[in-house]
């Protein structure tokens, strides 16, 4: 194991060796990471198309109703599954593979197997999304994909987890960095969550209260124990790495990880506030949700103080722009989520567009933006090419950033009004529908902005993979 002495000036030979080691590690990840990440971007574009269709149908309900597969009830779950399992999971796995190799200071082994796993995963998403569009959805939220898609995805997930754990045991750096903790957690939790939930909700299935409890235990934990750990792992690696400054408090980062592991899996049942559930289960879940302020506070303090004095780097680094935007969104969405779980809050916000805005701030404002940042850092190091155009990068950032801000503000305000009207018995339902129309137009405009950004990013990625762009010079 090679240790770095912080205050010692490295010799030219030490620098050369470190550089060669890093380049060799990046090269070993090339095929696997590019396959996972490029597939992710493909599904992002597909999922964005479904998103726009679903969004426009909210205010043009007669649009594209002639074909069953283009109806809202199919397009909306197709959107959720392609972006959550296609884009989000695949981009997260790409980042995880690369970071585990780098942090373990060891070249990736079984890269070929990971490429095969990516192919299997792609087949699973295609079969699942196709099944939903053909009308075979299970109708259980977040588990809509019909058989055999879940089996295909579970096989791929187990291969990925096994490869990551095996590579972890081969590491040369014995210390486990906080990003590794998060990734190992995610790789353990997600296969268990997915297989257990699939078994209990769809295959067996458990009925009544147990089924809905397991459903929301799974759906919420996909965010908290799969997406969040991979997003935070990436932020904890890339923010210090890009600005060249160690994380402000490593102690806090470890507190953050272990408190997330302790509290998050309690939180899912707050989605069932007001439902026919035992009151103690909902209460326990609300307590778990409020306790999430501990890990969220730890992460927020850490990221802010790590960045303090280095905000000028946002001008230079696309990675930092996206990741810092994502980290700030994480704080906002998590604090909001904790309070949203309260019964009094749910009285208004539940079953409204307010919740949709919250979910998108988490999955998009936080996770997707961090994954874009991760791509901007990883891809040139894999392909050996700089990004073809800085203009395209800026266009991507601003369209996505403005898009998600517009989406969040519009639906948060509109959703709250919707909630107030829904609990007022003097307001007719049709009045609520009419009153919400401008907010739904705003949602579609925001969706167009974000989708435009995705197309721009897709173009940048295709150019990079095609070898367009200067030779990569180390990012400095």
């Amino acid at each position, binding site marked *: 194991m090679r240790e770095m002495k912080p205050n010692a000036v490295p010799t030219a030979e030490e620098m050369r060796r470190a550089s060669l080691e890093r380049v060799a590690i990046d090269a070993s990840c090339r095929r696997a990471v590019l396959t996972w990440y490029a597939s992710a971007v493909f599904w992002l574009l597909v999922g964005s198309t479904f998103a726009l269709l679903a969004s426009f149908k909210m205010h043009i309900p007669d649009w594209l109703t002639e074909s069953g597969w283009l109806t809202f009830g199919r397009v909306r779950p197709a959107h959720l599954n392609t972006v959550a399992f296609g884009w989000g999971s695949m981009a997260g796995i790409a980042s995880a593979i690369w970071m585990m190799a780098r942090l373990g200071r060891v070249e990736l082994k079984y890269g070929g197997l990971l490429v095969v796993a990516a192919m299997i995963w792609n087949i699973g998403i295609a079969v699942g999304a196709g099944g939903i569009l053909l009308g075979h959805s299970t109708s259980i939220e977040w588990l809509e994909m019909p058989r055999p898609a879940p089996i295909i995805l579970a096989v791929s997930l187990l291969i990925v987890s096994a490869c990551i754990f095996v590579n972890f045991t081969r590491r040369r750096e014995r210390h486990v960095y906080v990003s590794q903790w998060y990734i190992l957690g995610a790789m353990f939790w997600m296969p268990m969550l997915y297989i257990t939930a699939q078994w209990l909700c769809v295959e067996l299935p458990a009925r009544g209260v147990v089924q809905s409890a397991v459903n929301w235990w799974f759906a919420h934990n996909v965010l908290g124990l799969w997406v969040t750990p991979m997003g935070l792992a990436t932020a904890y690696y890339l923010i210090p*790495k890009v600005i060249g400054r160690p994380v402000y408090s490593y102690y806090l980062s470890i507190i953050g990880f272990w408190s997330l592991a302790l509290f998050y899996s309690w939180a899912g049942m707050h989605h069932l506030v007001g439902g026919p559930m035992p009151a103690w289960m909902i209460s326990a879940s609300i307590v778990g949700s409020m306790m999430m302020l501990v890990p969220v506070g730890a992460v927020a303090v850490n990221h802010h103080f790590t960045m303090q004095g280095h905000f000028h780097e946002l001008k230079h680094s696309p990675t930092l722009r996206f990741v810092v935007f994502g980290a700030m969104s994480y704080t906002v969405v998590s604090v909001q989520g904790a309070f949203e779980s309260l019964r009094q809050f749910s009285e208004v916000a539940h079953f409204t567009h307010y919740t949709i805005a919250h979910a998108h701030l988490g999955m998009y404002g936080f996770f997707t933006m961090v994954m874009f940042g991760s791509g901007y850092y990883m891809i040139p190091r894999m392909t050996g090419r700089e990004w073809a155009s800085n203009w395209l990068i800026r266009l991507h950032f601003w369209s996505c950033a403005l898009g998600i801000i517009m989406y969040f503000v519009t639906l948060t305000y509109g959703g709250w009004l919707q909630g107030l009207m829904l609990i007022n018995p003097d307001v007719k339902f049709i009045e609520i529908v009419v009153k919400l129309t401008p907010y739904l137009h705003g949602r579609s405009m925001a969706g167009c902005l974000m989708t435009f950004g995705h197309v721009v990013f897709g173009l940048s990625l295709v150019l990079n993979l095609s070898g367009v762009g200067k030779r990569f010079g180390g990012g400095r």
Partner: protein
Amino acid sequence: MVPAELMVRATLLFSVIAFGGAAALVLAWAVQNGQFDNFTRAAEGIFDADEPIGQPTDRTLSAAAGERDA
């Protein structure tokens, strides 16, 4: 109790034990293994001689790199 109910209870029990047990085991391993002994070194572990502390590693949008667009 019908077999389906038994299966549900067995699955839930297994999940609780697996989730909680794994967390307890890993935490014990981490403490014994000295993973929480030296936080300063842990935080600096992502840097190396070629990309040391104080060295930004992504200036893609800086003035020099921006010339690519011209």
